[in-house]
């Protein structure tokens, strides 16, 4: 008899909904059968970047046949505030609109088309106010959504003064739309007693619950939020889902009917926030080897009109501007710029990518200044050795995998040989230039705010041995439900088919954190393991007592329990335990140990551990058009001891390609009035299959169990691979630099669109000529 249950940890199981995905049976919120009387909603949004609403006339809209309800800020029974961190962020603009696309009213009608027409009939008279449309302007006006963050270590001023070499630099880093394929959607269904049930496509049911309760003036226990699955999230459905769910709930309350609000793609892109674009400025001091002695960096983020999650995004940016490099003396300032553009929000990496790209630009600046290969400059600065293992925020690095990973990736990618080949190619190629880059990453796992690092789970074992599993995590495609079910299967030693994972619900597991920060399986896996272990312990105690053996003589083998010399099926023991009045239901709870962080001082040990990875990318550019292509990418990614190598592989590949899009073809363009001009896939281009590097070798680091006591020694994997794509931008920049003989730093911002590449090439040609 095979003693491995099907579906324990480490197995490359397919996604639990895979068959439902391919048959169209997987239900998303817009697919749920509609209750009789369900209304459909549409938002009325600002056409101005900044204006006072002098007059709003709803009469024509209300008169349209089929319109059931309209809500504005005045019609909110509770408090008009959905701020996730600070306070005072209204869901519907109250008197003043602060960005193009800012919702100020919403209509519910019998059909979506009627709601849309009604929304367009709402007459608004604006008095335009001066807008802030750029990061530079916000800095000039000192317009910030929250306080400026400063992280410091050592005497950076003196360090800069005494350094043998000093350079300054600047880098613009573009934002990114999430472009989850399922746009934001919620269905609010009024319940008895004025309660509200909300089906929300959200990564954070608890926050949606709080938002809806606040807006409706209800206690939290009167609002239930559920989410079985999202059609992608990537951070975009963390705080921003509350906008959609909140408005649906307001309309449902007002009309006393179920209301569905699904944003069409253009509205989704215009109304909801994105990855922050950043403006980076720095001054760095270094020695002849390129070793950084001191650095002063300003990271200014376009936050949009309100704070939303921006303070936390900036915190993570500051905590990742070191990447793998030891910075002896450092000041990093995070500027949360207030602009009259949509409020930017969480997006896979959460500021980490921008912080890492910034320090990579610094490495490039140093390399060009010294005429040394960037790889040597990197190596000179890697963490490691006595006195060089503490981050600027005071965390000691105990699990350093940088030496191992960089060594292995260089071998895997045949880096040195290809470096020589590419240099030789460039020496004779008039139009096409190639570039190569090796990029290592270190990403801190845990929410920066210690409070958020907790999770709950609920496990029931039924008398036939089937298991119901619920936890605070949400499924957005990342395979969390599968992984957590594997953990439970492993604890009970039963086939995963016996475990059913149900929709995340605030009524089953309360007070949850967002499924975010790469922490989904770390937190929820541990909580579920605990719950299952509690039940298992009860079953062991019961079996020992019932059959008169020692607890050590009760063994959970694959799908059966061996009690002394007896063998019972899992279901048999469950039934027997029930018959003897043993509880087969338990909650589990987990809090990440050891972590602490002082947000005021920006010091502490906020991360339970680090996830590492490395990528070697090869790019080709066309110096006549600026078109580029990634020809090859080799990836080595640390997953600890992977819970599910197939799912982790999917996160690595998918994250990498998403990061590649951020740094190459995805460009958000706002016009002079503050309107987003790239608000649909016709104008905003995410990667397609052709953009995948034709040679793409991805490996999971072997024999690398997490040093920290995580769930089965695995590591969080949701975000880190996105940043591996920084290698593609570096490779493109390397190709551009070849035009100037690698003597000058190419003035290349991100994303590296054909236009930016060509202009950088031209600048080098002029500078070199």
């Amino acid at each position: 008899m095979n003693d491995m249950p099907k579906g324990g940890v480490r197995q490359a199981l397919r996604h639990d909904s895979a068959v439902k995905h391919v048959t169209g049976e997987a239900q998303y919120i817009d697919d749920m059968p509609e209750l009789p009387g369900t209304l459909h909603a549409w938002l009325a949004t600002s056409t101005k970047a900044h204006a006072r609403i002098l007059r709003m006339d709803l009469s024509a809209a209300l008169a349209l046949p089929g319109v059931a309800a309209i809500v504005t800020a005045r019609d909110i029974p509770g408090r008009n505030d959905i701020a996730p961190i600070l306070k005072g962020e209204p869901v519907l603009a109250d008197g003043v609109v602060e960005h193009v696309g800012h919702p100020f009213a919403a209509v519910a009608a019998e059909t979506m088309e009627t709601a849309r027409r009604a929304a367009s009939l709402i007459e608004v008279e604006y008095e335009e106010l001066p807008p802030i449309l750029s990061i530079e302007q916000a800095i000039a006006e000192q317009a910030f959504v929250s306080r400026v963050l400063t992280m410091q270590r050592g005497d950076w001023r003196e360090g800069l003064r005494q350094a043998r070499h000093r350079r300054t630099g600047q880098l613009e880093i573009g934002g990114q739309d999430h472009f989850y394929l399922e746009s934001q959607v919620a269905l609010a269904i009024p319940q008895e007693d004025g309660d509200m049930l909300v089906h929300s496509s959200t990564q954070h049911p608890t926050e949606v619950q709080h938002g809806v309760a606040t807006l409706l003036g209800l206690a939290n226990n009167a609002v239930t939020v559920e989410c079985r699955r999202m059609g992608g999230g990537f951070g975009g459905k963390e705080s921003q889902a509350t906008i959609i769910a909140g408005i649906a709930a307001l309309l449902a309350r007002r009309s006393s009917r179920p209301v569905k609000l699904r944003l069409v793609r253009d509205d989704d892109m215009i109304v909801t926030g994105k990855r922050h674009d950043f403006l980076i400025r720095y001054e760095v001091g270094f020695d002849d080897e390129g070793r950084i002695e001191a650095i002063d960096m300003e990271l200014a983020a376009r936050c949009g009109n309100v704070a939303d999650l921006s303070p936390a995004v900036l915190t993570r940016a500051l905590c990742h501007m070191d990447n793998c490099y030891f910075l002896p003396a450092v000041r990093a300032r995070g500027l949360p710029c207030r602009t009259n553009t949509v409020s930017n929000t969480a997006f896979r990496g959460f500021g980490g990518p921008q912080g890492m790209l910034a320090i990579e630009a610094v490495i490039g600046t140093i390399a060009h200044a010294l005429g040394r290969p960037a790889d040597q400059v990197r190596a000179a600065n890697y963490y490691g050795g006595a006195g060089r293992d503490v981050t600027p925020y005071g965390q000691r690095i105990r699990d350093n995998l940088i030496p191992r990973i960089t060594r292995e990736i260089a071998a895997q990618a045949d880096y040195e040989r290809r470096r020589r080949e590419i240099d030789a190619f460039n020496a004779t190629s008039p139009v096409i230039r190639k570039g190569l880059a090796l990029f290592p990453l270190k990403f801190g796992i845990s929410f920066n705010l210690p409070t958020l690092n907790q999770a709950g789970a609920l496990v029931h074992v039924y008398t036939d041995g089937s298991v119901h599993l619920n936890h605070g995590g949400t499924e957005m495609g990342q395979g969390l439900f599968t992984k957590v079910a594997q953990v439970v299967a492993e604890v009970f030693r039963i086939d995963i088919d016996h475990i059913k994972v149900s929709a995340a619900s605030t009524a089953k597991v309360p007070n949850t954190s967002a499924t975010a920060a790469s922490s989904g399986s770390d937190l929820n896996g541990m909580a579920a393991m605990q719950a299952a272990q509690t039940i298992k312990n009860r079953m062991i105690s019961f079996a020992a007592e019932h059959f008169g053996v020692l607890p050590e003589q009760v063994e959970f083998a694959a799908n059966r329990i061996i009690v002394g010399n007896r063998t019972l099926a899992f279901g048999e023991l469950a039934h027997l335990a029930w018959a003897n009045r043993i509880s087969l239901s338990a909650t589990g709870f987990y809090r990440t140990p050891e972590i602490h962080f002082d947000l005021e001082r920006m010091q502490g040990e906020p991360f339970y551990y680090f996830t590492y990875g490395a990528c070697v990318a090869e790019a080709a550019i066309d110096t006549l058009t600026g078109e580029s292509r990634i020809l090859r990418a080799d990836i080595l990614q640390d997953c600890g001891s992977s819970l599910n190598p197939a799912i982790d592989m999917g996160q690595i590949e998918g994250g990498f390609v998403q990061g590649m899009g951020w740094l190459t073809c995805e460009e958000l363009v706002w016009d002079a009035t503050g309107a987003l001009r790239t608000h649909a896939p016709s104008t905003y281009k995410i990667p397609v299959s052709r953009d995948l590097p034709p040679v793409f070798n991805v490996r999971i680091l072997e024999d690398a169990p997490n040093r920290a006591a995580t769930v089965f020694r695995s590591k969080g994997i949701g975000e880190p691979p996105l940043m591996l794509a920084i290698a593609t931008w570096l490779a493109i920049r390397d190709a551009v630099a070849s035009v100037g003989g690698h003597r000058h730093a190419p003035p290349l911002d991100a994303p590296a669109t054909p236009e930016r590449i060509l202009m950088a090439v031209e600048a080098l040609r002029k500078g070199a000529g």
Partner: protein
Amino acid sequence: MAMPDAISFLLNGELRRIERPAPERTVLDHLRLVERRTGTKEGCAEGDCGACTVVLGERSGDAVSYRAVNSCILFTTELDGKLLLTVEGLRDADGGLHPAQRALVEHHGSQCGYCTPGFVMTLFALHHAPEMTDEDSIHQALSGNLCRCTGYRPILAAARSVAGVGDDRFARMARELLGRLDGLRRAPGMATVIDGEYGRYDAPESLAALDRLLTAHPGAHLLAGGTDLGLLVTKQHRALGHVISLNRIPELSRIEASADALIVGAAANYTDILPRLENDWPSFAALIRRLGSWQIRNLGTMGGNVANASPIGDSPPALLALGAEAIIRSAGGERVLPLERFFLAYRRTALDAGEYLRALRIPRPAAGDFFRTYKVSKRFEQDISAVCGAFFLRFDDAGRVTLARIAYGGMAATPKRAVGAEAALAGRRFDAAAVDAAIAALADDFTPIDDFRASATYRRHVAGNLLRRALMERTAPETPTGVLAL
């Protein structure tokens, strides 16, 4: 004459009849709102993401041809007489997965699953496309399906495993399906006319009938592929009022080759046109393979690309450079106009009221003619040009340029010839000095604009550099130009 006011089609094999459909009702809305078949998803409502992909089956000789299309911009009227397959219709009677579905499951090709039904349908069509098994073809087939989760590697693996296999139960029941499709055919003369509360729809079956209709209703919208017209409905929320479909007039879909020209019917779609371009103008064919996506090429027409006179259409620069002519027809007869006189201003053409584009006449190249067309955009697949350039050169025995036709898209309010640059090349050898002179002349030929696709500076720069690329490909054909071929 009998005038049916309903359309009939097979939905996953089941007969469906829609009485008096609104002309602008999309197939996607019909599936989701009326049929309540929610497997097919809306991702963008503009034919760019592929989540709504369905497959249309129709008779092609003795076989059923299957083509992936975007249901979000396809009107239900165009289903008439066809087989519509959706993700719900692929499983076997016993519940077994279709090979396309199984391949995606086995290769871990879905994560969030929202794009997956669209990929399933594209892979189904690929399964039935025997000529599309190489890597390049597979990318072409997937060009209209966006996935934000997987990074495509597992989807490509699944696609490779099913491409061109064509041995599923649909292949086995082809005869039965053909019979049922034939059963939906209208008797000749049964032109469709739907005059309902939402508007009017005509599907005439002859040019003469179309002439009469357009004389009576010169303001009606002409529908061929509908890949642009659909956007008026889904993005601009326009009621179309009166739609005349060109899809039941055989002459308009015909592609005829004569000794000296290719005559492309105005309603012929790109997928049908492509193989006819490969021999004479491989560079044009390469451009068309990057136009839109597989789904768009299956519906979209070159005639539509010309007649809507967008400044950023991909085929007009090539057609201008090749010296193509517009064959224009009305009840009064036909006239032929060189294409450069067809585009008058931004989205305005030389078509008078009651006139329509019947066909495009593309002269075939003579021995020694040189032709290249290049498109530059942020993404290689399914993107709109920042700049599109086309270069046609004819030489005398001494290597001097006797005829230069150069045209650009994205550089002016219409697709336009670069007359100054052409003049700069005329009579000279095609060399670096001549190209420098032509590039200098481009500054007077065009005053491009800044927009979200590119700046004017970049456009100007690239327009000239594309001419340099053409020169390199003429004079140093061994030197790699362009990163796509690497």
